[in-house]
C-alpha cells in the first residue's frame, strides 16, 4: 500500500468518525445525568440543515457551526421541557423528537436540495503540514476534527475533575439522594440535555459541511442511532468513544474501498456493514464483560424524577 492511499484512508476514517464522536460525547453526558434521549438522530439532522443553510447564505463556516449548535439545542429544549418539567416517558419523547426533527428538516430544507456550498476546508500550517507522512497525519485535518477530540477531553475533565461533574454523575446514579442533599436535579439534567443537543447539532453539521457539501433529506442515515450504540460500547467512559468511533469509521471506509480491492460482494451487503457491526460490537462487549456487572451504567438512566417537596 502506498503512502498516499494510506493517508487517504486515515483521513477518510477520521471524517467518517467525527460526527459520531460529537453526537456520542453529547449523549454520554446526558446519560451520565440519568436521562436517555433517543432523539439524537433528530437533533443531528436539524444541525445538518441549519449548518448548511447558514453556510450557504453567509459563507461563514464559524456562523454555520454556531447555528447548527443552536439548532440542536432548541430541538433538545423541547425534550428537556417535556421530560424534565412535564415528566413524560423518555423513550417515547425521544422517538417523537427524532420523527419531528426528520420531518421539520425535510420540510424546511426543500429549498436547498439542489444547491452546493463551499466545503469547510482542512487547515494547512506552513512547515508542519509539509512534513512527509507526519504532516498530513497530525497537522492537516479539518479544524472540527481537532475540536471533536478536544470536546472528548473537556467532557472527561468536567465529569471526573470538577465538582459539578461529580454532582452530575451523582444525580445520574441516585437522583433522590442527590436531591435530598440539596442539588437541583432538574437544572443539571436540563443543562446536560442542552449540551447533548449542541453536540449532536455540530455532529450533524459536520456531515453537511465537511463530509458531503450538499443537503439531503434524512442524510444522517441512522448515525444518531449508531452514536447511541457507541455510548453503550464506551461503557459511558469518554475516551472510549474515540476508539469506538474510529472502529465504525473504519468499517464505513472499508465499505467504500472494498470495491477498489476487487472484493466481489454486492453493494447492498457492504452497506449493511456499519449497522451489523454495531450489533456485533455490542454483543462482543457483553461477552467480554461476562459475569461482571457493568458498574458504569448510570443507575437512574431513563427513570423519571419528581420531587414531592
Amino acid at each position, binding site marked *: 500500500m502506498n503512502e498516499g492511499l494510506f493517508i487517504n484512508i486515515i483521513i477518510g476514517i477520521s471524517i467518517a468518525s467525527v460526527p459520531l464522536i460529537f453526537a456520542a460525547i453529547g449523549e454520554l453526558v446526558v446519560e451520565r445525568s440519568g436521562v436517555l434521549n*433517543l432523539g439524537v438522530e433528530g437533533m443531528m439532522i436539524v444541525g445538518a440543515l441549519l449548518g448548511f443553510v447558514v453556510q450557504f447564505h453567509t459563507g461563514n463556516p464559524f456562523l454555520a457551526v454556531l447555528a447548527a449548535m443552536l439548532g440542536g439545542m432548541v430541538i433538545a429544549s*423541547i425534550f428537556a421541557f*417535556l421530560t424534565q418539567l*412535564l*415528566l*413524560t*416517558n423518555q*423513550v*417515547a*419523547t425521544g*422517538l*417523537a*423528537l427524532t*420523527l*419531528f*426533527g*426528520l*420531518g*421539520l428538516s*425535510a*420540510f*424546511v430544507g*426543500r429549498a436547498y436540495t439542489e444547491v452546493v456550498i463551499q466545503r469547510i476546508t482542512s487547515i494547512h500550517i506552513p512547515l508542519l503540514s509539509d512534513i512527509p507522512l507526519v504532516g498530513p497525519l497530525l497537522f492537516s485535518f479539518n479544524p472540527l476534527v481537532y475540536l471533536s477530540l478536544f470536546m472528548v477531553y473537556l467532557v472527561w475533565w468536567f465529569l471526573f475533575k470538577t465538582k459539578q461533574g461529580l454532582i452530575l454523575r451523582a444525580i445520574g446514579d441516585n437522583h433522590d439522594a442527590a436531591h435530598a442533599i440539596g442539588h437541583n436535579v432538574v437544572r443539571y439534567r436540563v443543562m446536560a440535555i442542552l449540551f447533548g443537543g449542541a453536540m449532536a447539532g455540530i455532529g450533524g453539521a459536520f456531515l453537511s459541511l465537511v463530509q458531503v457539501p450538499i443537503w439531503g*433529506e434524512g442524510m444522517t*442515515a*441512522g448515525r444518531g*442511532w*449508531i452514536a*447511541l*450504540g457507541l455510548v*453503550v460500547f464506551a461503557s459511558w467512559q469518554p475516551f472510549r468513544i474515540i476508539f469506538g468511533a474510529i472502529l465504525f469509521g473504519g468499517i464505513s471506509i472499508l465499505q467504500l474501498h472494498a470495491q477498489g480491492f476487487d472484493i466481489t460482494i*454486492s453493494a*447492498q*451487503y457492504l*452497506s*449493511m456493514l456499519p*449497522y*451489523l457491526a*454495531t*450489533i456485533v460490537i*455490542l*454483543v462482543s462487549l*457483553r*461477552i467480554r464483560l461476562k459475569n461482571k456487572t457493568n458498574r458504569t451504567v448510570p443507575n437512574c438512566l431513563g427513570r423519571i424524577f*419528581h420531587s*414531592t417537596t
Partner: protein
Amino acid sequence: MLRLIPRVENSTAMVLLSPLLALTLTALSAYLIFIFILVDIPVSSVFFTLFVEPLIDSYYFSELLVKAAPLMIIGLGLSIGFRAGIWNIGAEGQYVMGGIAGSAVAVYFFDVEALWLLPLMAIAGILGGMFYAGIAAFLRIKYQVNEILVTLMLSYVAVFFLSSMLQGPLQDPSGFNFPESRMFHDSALMPIIWQGTRVHIGLIIAILLSFIAWFGIKKHMFGMQIKISGSAPRAAKFAGFDDNKTVWYSLLISGGLAGLAGLFEAAGPAGQLTPGLPAFYGFTAIIVAFLARLHPIGVLFSALLIALSYVGGENVQIDYDLPKSITQIFQGMLLFYFLACDILIKYKVVFFKTKN
C-alpha cells in the same frame, strides 16, 4: 410559578379530555408553523386538504382505510410489547422481512391457483417478522444487549436486504431488469372488500386481531404478566413471572404482526414486491401505539387518525407542491402534545406565587 401535585386517583375526566386537548394544541401549532413558512398559500385551504378532504371524499377515505390497516396491525403488536417495557423500535425491519418472506412464497408458486396460497403467504410473513424480532430477543436474553438498538440497526439492514433480493432471486425474469418481483397471481392477492377501491380484507383482520388481543390481555394470565413486568419489574420477579418469557413473547408477537402487515402490503395495494415496500409504517406505528395509550382497541382509532395525516399529507403534496414531510411534523407534534397532556391525568397543575 407552576407546580405538579400528584393526584390521589387518576382523573377520569382527563383520560378523555387530554387527547382532545392534545389534538387542539397540535392543530393550533401546525397553523402557526404554516403561517410562518407558507407565505403565498392560504393556510386555511391547506388545512382543509390536510384534515377534512380525506374524510368527505369517498376515494380519499378509502385510501385512508388502506393506510390504516397496516398501522393498526403493527401498532397493536407494539402496544403489547411496550406494555411490558420491551422497546421494539425496529418494527419497520420486521415489516420488510415479513413482506419478503411472504412474497417469496407468492413468487415460488407464481402459476398456482389455490385457496391455501394466501394463508401460506401470511404464515411465511408472520414467521419472517418473528424471526427478525427473535434475533433481538435472543441477543437481549443471552447477552443483555439493548433491544432498542438491535431492532433499529436490523431495520436498516432489512432495507438493503430487500434491495438485494429484488436484484437477485426475487427479481422478475421478464421485468426489463427493474428491481421488482413479478406480479402476484390473482389467488395470491388480498381480496378487496370495498369494490372499486384498494380496501382489502386486511382491515377486517386488523379489527379482529385488536379484539382478540383486548380479550387476551384482559382474561389471560399473560396480559397480567406483561402489565406487571412493565410497570413494576420487581413485583413481577416476586410473583415468579419468567422475565425471559416476557421478552420472547413481546418481541415475537410484535415482530410477527409487523411481518403480517408487510405481507398484506405486498399482496394488497402493491400486488408485487417493490423497493417501495418500506413506507415508514413501522416507525409511525410507534406513535399509533402511544396515542392509543397502549390499548388494543384504542389502536384502531389512533391508526385512523394517523392514516388521515398520511392521506392529507399526500394530497397537500399534489395540490400545493408541498413536501410529504408535513405528515411527519404533524405526527411528531401530536405525540409531543399527547405525552405532555397526559400529565394532567396523574398530576394536578397548581399555580402559586413565589415568595421572595
